[in-house]
C-alpha cells in the first residue's frame, strides 16, 4: 500500500526526518510511536504533501506520489486526520464532512456521511452546529470522519487520542479497529504507545528522525527498550 524510502525533510536548515523508511501493507493498522519532537507529524505531513521533502521516495499502491500536489494524493486515496484536529471552525459539522469529500464526484457522498454519523452518533445530533463549538472529543471524531469522507485507501491519523478522556480514547480506538474491518489501511501516530500498539498489527518506533525499531505490535509492547522509553511513565 505505502512504501517510504529514505525520506528526508526539515524546517529551514534543521533536518527533522533523517532518512525514514517504512512500509504499510494493505489491510494493516500500523502504529508509529515516538517521543515529543521525534518527527511523527512532520512525516505524516510529508506523506500528504503539505510538508516539502528534501529527499527520498513515497510510493502509494506502487506509484510514486512524492512529486504530486496534496489534492492529487487525496484523489489517489490518501487522506489524513491531522494533529490538533484542525476542523473548519466556523463551518457546520455537515459542511466539514461534505468538504472531506471535496475531490469526489460520485453519488454516494450522502450515504458515506450517514455512515460517519452511524459511527459517531454524537456528530449526528450536532450536524448543523459550527464545528468550532464542539467538544474536543467531538472535534476529533469530526476530523476522523472528514478524512473518511475522502474514501481513503490509506488513512493517516495523527494523535487521535490527544487530550481525550480514557472513555473517549477507547471509543476512538474501537473505531479504528472497525475501519480495518472495512478494508481501510491505517497509519496511526500515537504518543499513547501502549494503546496504539495493542490494536496495531505492526509498529515502528521513530526517534530523532530515524526508525530505530520495528516489529509486530505485541512484540514491541514487550520489547524492554521500547517499554523503558515509551511505556514506562506514560
Amino acid at each position: 500500500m505505502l512504501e517510504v524510502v529514505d525520506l528526508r525533510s526539515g524546517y529551514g536548515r534543521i533536518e527533522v526526518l533523517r532518512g525514514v523508511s517504512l512500509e504499510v501493507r494493505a489491510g494493516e493498522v500500523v502504529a508509529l510511536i515516538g517521543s515529543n519532537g521525534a518527527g511523527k507529524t512532520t512525516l505524516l505531513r510529508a506523506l500528504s504533501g503539505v510538508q516539502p521533502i528534501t529527499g527520498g521516495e513515497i510510493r502509494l499502491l506502487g506509484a510514486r506520489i512524492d512529486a504530486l500536489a496534496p489534492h492529487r494524493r487525496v484523489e489517489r486515496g490518501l487522506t489524513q486526520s491531522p494533529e490538533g484536529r484542525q476542523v473548519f471552525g466556523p463551518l457546520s459539522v455537515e459542511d466539514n464532512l461534505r468538504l472531506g469529500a471535496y475531490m469526489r464526484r460520485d453519488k454516494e457522498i450522502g450515504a458515506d456521511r450517514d455512515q460517519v454519523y452511524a459511527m459517531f452518533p454524537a456528530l449526528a445530533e450536532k450536524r448543523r452546529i459550527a464545528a468550532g463549538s464542539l467538544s474536543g472529543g467531538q472535534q476529533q471524531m469530526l476530523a476522523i470522519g472528514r478524512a473518511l469522507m475522502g474514501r481513503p485507501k490509506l488513512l493517516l491519523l495523527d494523535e487521535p487520542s490527544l487530550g481525550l478522556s480514557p472513555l473517549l480514547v477507547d471509543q476512538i480506538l474501537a473505531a479504528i479497529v472497525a475501519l480495518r474491518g472495512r478494508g481501510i489501511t491505517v497509519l496511526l501516530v500515537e504518543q499513547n504507545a501502549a494503546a496504539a500498539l495493542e490494536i496495531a498489527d505492526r509498529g515502528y518506533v521513530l526517534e530523532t528522525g530515524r526508525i530505530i525499531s520495528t516489529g509486530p505490535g505485541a512484540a514491541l509492547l514487550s520489547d524492554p527498550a521500547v517499554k523503558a522509553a515509551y511505556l514506562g511513565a506514560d
Partner: protein
Amino acid sequence: MSEFVQFLMSGLTVGAVYALVALGFTLVYTASDVVNFAQGEFVMLGGMVTVFMAALGVPLPVAALIAVAAAVCVGLLLYWLAIAPSRGASPVTLIIITIGASILLRGAAQVLFDKQFHKLPSFSGDVPVNLLGAAVQPQSFWVIGGTALIVLLLYLFMERTVLGKALRATAANRLAARLVGINTTTVMTLAFGGSAAIGAIGGILVTPITLTSYDVGTLLALKGFAAAMLGGMGNPLGAVMGGILLGLLESFGAGYLSSTYKDGIAFVVILVVLVAMPQGLFGRRSVERV
C-alpha cells in the same frame, strides 16, 4: 424630512459602492490573507473601459461586459504575476506589492485612456424620482439594487455551493483545506477574479452619478479598506454594513455639518471605532476551542 431622505439616499448610493470595494477586500483577504490595495483600480477599470468601449460605438451592455472581463483579467494577472510568486512573503511585503500594482495600473490607465473625467449615460434616464419629497436620481436605484443583488449572489455562493464552502474552509484553516484536497491556488484565483468583477460592476453602476477618471481608484480603495476594517476584516456581511455605514456618515456629515469635512468625519469615526473595538463593529469572536 425630504432633506433627510435626500441625504439617506445619497449615503446609501455611495455606501453601496464602498460596500462593493470592501467586499472585494474581504474576499481576497479571506482566501489569501492579502490586503489588496489595488482593489480600487478594478472600480476605475470598470468605469473607464466601459466609457471607452461605448465611445467606440459598442452598445452599453456589451461594453460593460467587456469592462468586467478586462478587470477580471487584470485581477488574475495580478495574482499570477505578483502575488503567487511571492508566496510566503510577509504581509507588509504583500501590501507593498499591491500598492505598487495599483500605481502601475493607474499609470497605465492614464497612458491608455486619458486624464479627463468621463460620464456614462444613466441606465434609465435622468428624470428624478420623487421619494417622500426628495428628488432621487434613478441611477441610485441601479447602484443600490445592483449591490444588493451582488451581495445576495455572493452569500448564496458562499453558503450553498461546495466551492463557496471550500473558500470559507480555506479561510478558516488552510492546512486542513489542503489535506481534504482543496487546491488553495484555485481558491485564491477565484477570489482575485471575483473581487475584480465585483469592483468593476460597482464602477460601471456608479459612473453615471460620480463620473470616473484614471485616478478614482485611490480614494475608493482607502474608503473601501476603511469600510472593511469598520465591519471587521474578513467578514463579508460586516464589509457591506461597514460600507453603507461609511456612506451614510459621509452623506449626513456633509449635509448637516459641512461638506469640507466629509472625508474627515468618516475617518475620525472609524478611528474611534477601531480604538474602542479593534475587531471592528461586526468582527466575529472566535468560536474555536483549542
